[in-house]
């Protein structure tokens, strides 16, 4: 953590306000480019929603940013640092949390271990957990329960708690609302906007749930066939219309 705090101001002259910046990003699997020429700028402290239908490359985009897939072309900057070609763990350690959509928890580990793993011994678990325990009262009581036995909603809470535990500068979240009860969606929404407000965390949401995304985000982009085809403020009038056009059948 401390290193990123030191290094971030040094590069602040060039990209002081930008938490995440993609330039002409291209990546994919095997012979296919799933992401073709993606350009994106996310301001610090904002919540940014990336919308798109299935198979348009949303998950691939996050994986590429996280270094889990190689960048084939273009570049990615996070908090001013050029992270192109970095191994995943280095990206994480400069202040990024990633919440994957599938197989996102270690089913056989208990809740406490799932949380501790994200800290990697870099900070005291008790201290950090105390900081977020208020947001996730259920988890505090279940630290020793095996994570795989949590309900779907509780697992999502675990994901969010794990993401917030490290005090990240930037959180990338892949479809946290999928398959959730409305009450839990509301809870997740509260936790994330709290993080953004209280700590100034930048959040990038990949979503299909437009209502959830729009309730949280200040800006949105629509991803179609690996390209950003629309972008704008969520508050604007044309936003709903544009999203409906691109996202429904």
């Amino acid at each position, binding site marked *: 953590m401390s290193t990123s705090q030191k290094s971030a101001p040094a590069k602040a002259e060039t990209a002081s306000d930008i938490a995440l910046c993609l330039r002409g990003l291209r990546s994919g699997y095997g*012979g296919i480019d799933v992401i073709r020429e993606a350009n994106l700028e996310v301001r610090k402290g904002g919540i940014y929603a990336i919308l798109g239908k299935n*198979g*348009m490359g949303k998950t691939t985009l996050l994986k590429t940013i996280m270094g889990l897939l190689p960048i084939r072309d273009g570049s990615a900057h996070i908090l001013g640092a050029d992270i192109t070609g970095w191994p995943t763990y280095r990206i994480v350690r400069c202040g990024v949390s990633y919440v994957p959509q599938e197989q996102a928890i270690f089913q056989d580990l208990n809740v406490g271990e799932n949380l501790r793993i994200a800290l990697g011994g870099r900070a005291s678990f008790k201290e950090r957990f105390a900081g977020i325990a208020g947001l996730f009262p259920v988890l505090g009581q279940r630290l020793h329960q095996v994570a795989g036995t949590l309900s779907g909603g509780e697992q999502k809470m675990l994901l969010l708690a794990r993401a917030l535990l490290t005090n990240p500068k930037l959180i990338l979240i892949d479809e946290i609302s*999928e398959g959730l009860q409305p009450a839990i969606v509301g809870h997740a929404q509260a936790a994330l906007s709290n993080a953004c407000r209280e700590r100034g965390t930048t959040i990038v949401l990949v979503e299909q749930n*437009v*209502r959830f995304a729009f309730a949280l985000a200040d800006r949105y982009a629509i991803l179609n066939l690996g390209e950003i085809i629309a972008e704008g403020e969520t508050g604007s009038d044309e936003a709903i219309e544009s999203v409906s056009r691109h996202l429904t059948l």
Partner: protein
Amino acid sequence: MDLAAWSPDTPRRLSVAKVLALTACGIGVILISSALLGVYDAQILSQAFFFAVVAIAVDLQWGYTGILSWGQSAFFGIGVYGVAIASAHYGGGAPIAILGATIAAALAAFVAGGAGWLSFWDGAPPFFVAIVTFAIPVVFTQVILSGGTYTGASSGLPFPTPNLAPWQWYRISGCLLVLVAIAAYVFTKSDAGRILVAIRENEDRCRYLGIRTARWKIGLMAACAVLSAVAGTLYAEYATVAATSYGDFVFGTELVIWTALGGRGTLIGPILGTIFINYISAVLGGSLPFLWLLIIGLIFVFVVIYLPSGFYPFLQQWASRRLPIPGRPFRGLLSSPQPEASGRPAGTDTRSLSPSLPAARGSMPRALAERAVVLHIREVQKSYGSLHVLRNISFDIHRGEVVGIVGPNGAGKTTLVRCISDGREYSAGDIAVSGRSTRSLSAQECVSLGVGRKFQTPSVFDALSVADCLHIARSFRKPPSLWRSGSHLALPLPALRIAELTGLFSQLHVPASHLAHGTKQALELAMVLALEPTILLLDEPTAGLTRAERTAVGSLLAVLAKEHNISVLLIEHDVDFVRTVCDRLVVLHMGEILLDGTVSDVVESEVVRSVYLGEAVGGT
């Protein structure tokens, strides 16, 4: 089903004359060299020739089929002991020896088949066969050692043998090697040999082409065991004594090392590797036994890391860089007997076909109700423990109907396709294809009922040519020959259409790995259509395609359904695509059917709209 046949001028094809010439050439070299060699060299080379026969068996399994067999020595040993025990205990003479050899070969086949059965269960990791075969020589050695005077235990078992001169043995072993090598060469070039490579390249695709891969692998292991045992029986006559070192674990690993160093999957590489290393070690190993082994070990590690395909392919490449050989011109297909297709040049631009087809969808030739139900799904469930991925899925697909499955991520679309293509996947309910239940049938059996599945990412056999890939797709209709390579390719009309429309015919001899992504997709589709399926399952057929290619695929599907009456079930996200192609849509949401209706029903549905926008659905 209409079939159209071609005789593409296959460069791979072997002529009888070529085989005979090669054989004559090989035997000639052996006979001439036998007159020139000293006795000692003849002795060493005879032994190396016998070992090289076993190395061929290792190569056929490992290099061609991907079965790493550490224990081939045990089968050689079984052959050695079969003859030795028969001759030592039941009287000498050729008939007894031949009887012993036959029993040994049968035993070897049985043991190898058993090892194969133990190794090839669904989902067994590829290294598991290596572990099982690793154990065979250990068991073999133990059995021989505890056999007392019957097996000779550790002393070895001497027995009466014909007294032949060294150069006679040189000729016998040399001719055996030449014949086995040529036979193996013909086999690898045959239809069956092609299937082995296909299994190595992509076993899953083979399964969904109806090829019983486990049976092929077990059969190959048994056949190679017989080959090794036969080499062992002859070697026993040469060595005059049976000893455990002919079947032990060390010899087994040496065979793998020789094969790896020579170049697996080349036949000639392992043969040369075996002969070369045996010869050098006879000369050098005598004075520096430990250092020699150390050097072999170091070279082996180096080759595994930096030259994984071995020395022979490396030298071949090096030589071909030095002496460039002019590329062979394409000799693709120029015409097809289909009247509507003839005259259209190979490699037609796929886009040129598309416009006329969507319009044709409007006029259905027959009413839906009249058409037979091809796929009948009733109350299908799929659960992992308490987690239900699919619940209560029921719908029918009729002949010639194109049905799309849509739904947000995690709805269970791919799981449903998997359940339809493999009867062992679903936990409850029933799926029937053309009236026959697929319950607990394997993927291969589902293929024979008429299910053809195309994977999402193109799944073809990268090392094989387009023509070979298509050949393999046809092999389940006709048992492949062990020695002939099919000179003509008989494809059902739909497959032919695809191949022709997408320009595959101009690339028949191009390795599949060199194809563009879209052409690969087309190849896989053509392969699946070659199975003559009644129901075609497609998982995101347009993923990774350009817009133009999407349109082309859409029109192809329309042709398949309309003109060839193939039913299609496809998973798709692209609404424009779905709109133009599908007769009906089934919307899945959280493992259940949300809606089953026409395209316009679905597009106009508020419920579907809210699901897609992520709004809670009516409290369900």
